[in-house]
């Protein structure tokens, strides 16, 4: 963004006051000028806050194997920040972004977090994608008292003062989906399959407990494939032998593509087999191909086809910024929430200080999220709904079910 653009935005900002009010954001937005909030008062811990600007960090993998997944999050976060700046910024200050590349390498995430927090003194970081990268960066955030907004749906079992989790934790994504498929498809037998690492394993553990103890169903097989493995012949035969009512899948990465292609080729398409997956968003469909997915179900909190005014606007602006062919997956939307939640928290706190922001955010209700209403829970996760999408051939999903608001429960009792 050039500096003349920025000046224009400042001019526009006053016009946008009304808009922002209509959007139900904080009263102070837009109309706030930096003069009302002297720098010395809003930043007491040496963060990079000046009279005109505040610096935040974006930390995702722009290179390496994870770049496939994380690109969407970077785009969404930048879009949100550009929109916030257009509305006048936060406490009258423009947001400036320092973007760092985690390069799909976990120590690099720790290293760059340290740089962002210690050298750049950023007020907040939007970033990390895999659990491994978050786990590596977490001690840095806790030690330097930084603030991280983490967008991915993940396995739970974590709650940190310094992190807000804008994606769903495992129980939010799993329980309601299983309830629905049991009821809707009269499913009794389940076959669980996932990539061999912590997120699928934890998810499957929760799923198994729920199926066996609460739904009266039976798990007839549980299978893990090595990350990156692309041969599913034997696994598919095992599934054929067990004839489960539902395949419950959490396969990721290159394996995911091979899994769906080979499943389809083995005759297990959606006409014959019900499958509910928790690892396919619009982003993955590009690689898998709509024809291989058609008719299968995904459990996510967000789908691009969601019908509501917030989402229509979000999708339109996302496409305007990144091209007509851009697709928006669950994580991309969750990443988009990060900057907005941070802005709201800063304004509620009247300060950029991490300690005050962290206290101010829980309890905040956001009505402008593309996914609809969300609320920040005391445990730093979001209350959100679960949707079931049925994939179409064109790579988009029809939302066939929407749950009520689900409380986040990162340490679920009875599921561990």
């Amino acid at each position, binding site marked *: 963004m050039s500096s003349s653009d920025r000046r224009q935005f400042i001019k526009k900002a006053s016009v946008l006051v009304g808009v922002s009010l209509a959007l139900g954001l904080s009263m102070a937005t837009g109309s706030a000028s930096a003069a009302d909030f002297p720098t010395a008062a809003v930043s007491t811990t040496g963060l990079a806050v000046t009279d005109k600007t505040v610096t935040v960090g974006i930390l995702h993998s722009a290179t*390496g194997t994870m770049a496939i997944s994380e690109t969407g999050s970077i785009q969404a976060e930048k879009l949100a920040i550009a929109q916030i700046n257009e509305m006048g910024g936060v406490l009258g200050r423009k947001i400036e972004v320092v973007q760092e590349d985690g390069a799909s390498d976990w120590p690099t995430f720790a290293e760059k977090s340290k740089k962002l927090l210690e050298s750049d003194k950023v007020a907040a970081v939007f970033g990390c994608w895999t659990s491994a990268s978050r786990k590596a960066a977490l001690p840095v955030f806790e030690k330097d008292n930084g603030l991280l907004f983490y967008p991915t749906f993940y396995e739970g079992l974590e709650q940190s003062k310094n992190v807000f989790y804008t994606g769903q934790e495992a129980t939010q994504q799993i329980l309601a989906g299983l309830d629905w498929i049991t009821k809707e498809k009269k499913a009794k037998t389940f076959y669980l399959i996932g990539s061999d690492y912590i997120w699928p394993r934890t998810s499957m553990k929760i799923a198994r407990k729920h199926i066996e103890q609460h739904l009266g169903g039976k798990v007839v097989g549980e299978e893990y*494939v090595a990350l990156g493995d692309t041969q599913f012949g034997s696994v598919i035969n095992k599934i054929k032998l067990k004839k489960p009512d539902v395949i419950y899948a959490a396969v990721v990465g290159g394996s995911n593509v091979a899994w769906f292609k080979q499943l389809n080729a083995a005759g297990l*398409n959606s006409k014959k087999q019900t499958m509910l997956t928790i690892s396919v968003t619009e982003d993955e469909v590009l690689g898998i191909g709509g024809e291989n997915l058609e008719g299968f179900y995904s459990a996510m909190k967000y789908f691009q086809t969601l019908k509501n005014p917030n989402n229509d606007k979000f999708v339109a602006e996302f496409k305007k910024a990144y091209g007509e062919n851009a697709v928006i997956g669950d994580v991309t939307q969750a990443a988009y929430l990060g900057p907005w939640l941070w802005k709201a928290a800063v304004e509620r706190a009247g300060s950029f200080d991490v300690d005050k922001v962290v206290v101010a955010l829980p309890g905040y209700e956001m009505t402008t999220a593309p996914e609809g209403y969300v609320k920040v829970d005391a445990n730093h996760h979001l209350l959100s709904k679960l949707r079931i999408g049925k994939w179409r051939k064109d790579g988009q999903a029809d939302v066939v079910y929407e749950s009520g608001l689900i409380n986040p429960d990162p340490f679920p009792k009875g599921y561990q």
Partner: protein
Amino acid sequence: MFGYTMDEVGNIMVMQGFSGLSLFSVLLLMALGLAIIFGQMGVINMAHGEFMMVGAYTAVFMSKLAVKYEMVNSYFVFAIIAAFILAFLIGYLVEYLLIRHLYKRPLDTLLATWGLSLVMQQTFRSSFGAKEVSAELPEWLLGSFKPTADIDIPINGVFVMVLALVVTLGVYFFMFRSRGGLRVRATVQNRVMASAVGINTQKVDRLTFALGCGIAGVSGAAFTTISSTGPTTGSLYIVDSFMVVVFGGAASLMGTIASAFGIAQAQSILQFFMTSSMGKVATLMTIVIILMMRPEGLFASKVRR
């Protein structure tokens, strides 16, 4: 048996047998190009996976064209030919620019080609995007063939199998029934003598390397039907390919076929009875242990060292 009817067990055995065969053809296709380059020339081509991706991206690109000109049903054959040609040409160029300077230092080719693989990965990423892409497949390649009501034979598996057969036969006829192959074998056995009798050994090397890359391209194009296409997908194949070649005994085409067969059956059976990831570990472990006991591989070339 375990609460299943004999019928069911029979059907699964048929399908399991097929998936073993299909894995065999996948491994064979992966390894053939490498077997030629490594076995005949002693060059370790770490960019092998990336050459496969050249083929895969060619197929994806052709499928985009095919959708545009409404030729989805027939383009795949052309895509495979194009994949071969493109990978062949790139291989030819790489040999000329890079490999020919390193024949005396086999371990160094490993490093140089690894560097090459990084460059190629980034090229894919810059030109096709970081995200995985998929080729629009013709209808006749999708779904399954059903000899009885309960047996599904994946058509893409059959396709890969047929292709593996064609390529293997092609390589066989080239190597053992053509003058070109004769020159290649002569060069491998005794470079000095070969050049003394008038064989242009440099040209032979270049063609051999390019041929290996071309075959990698073909297999890459074929794999778009069964797995993913992304900038880093190639690196998933590299260890498996090397294991097949080394296990078979580098200089022997028969060895490569036998070892692909053995590894495929072992992996397919182990993955059926264990979880998939443990099956994979067990297979690799078995190979390593056998290799430690029989370092020259299954079919060692009978050469004094």
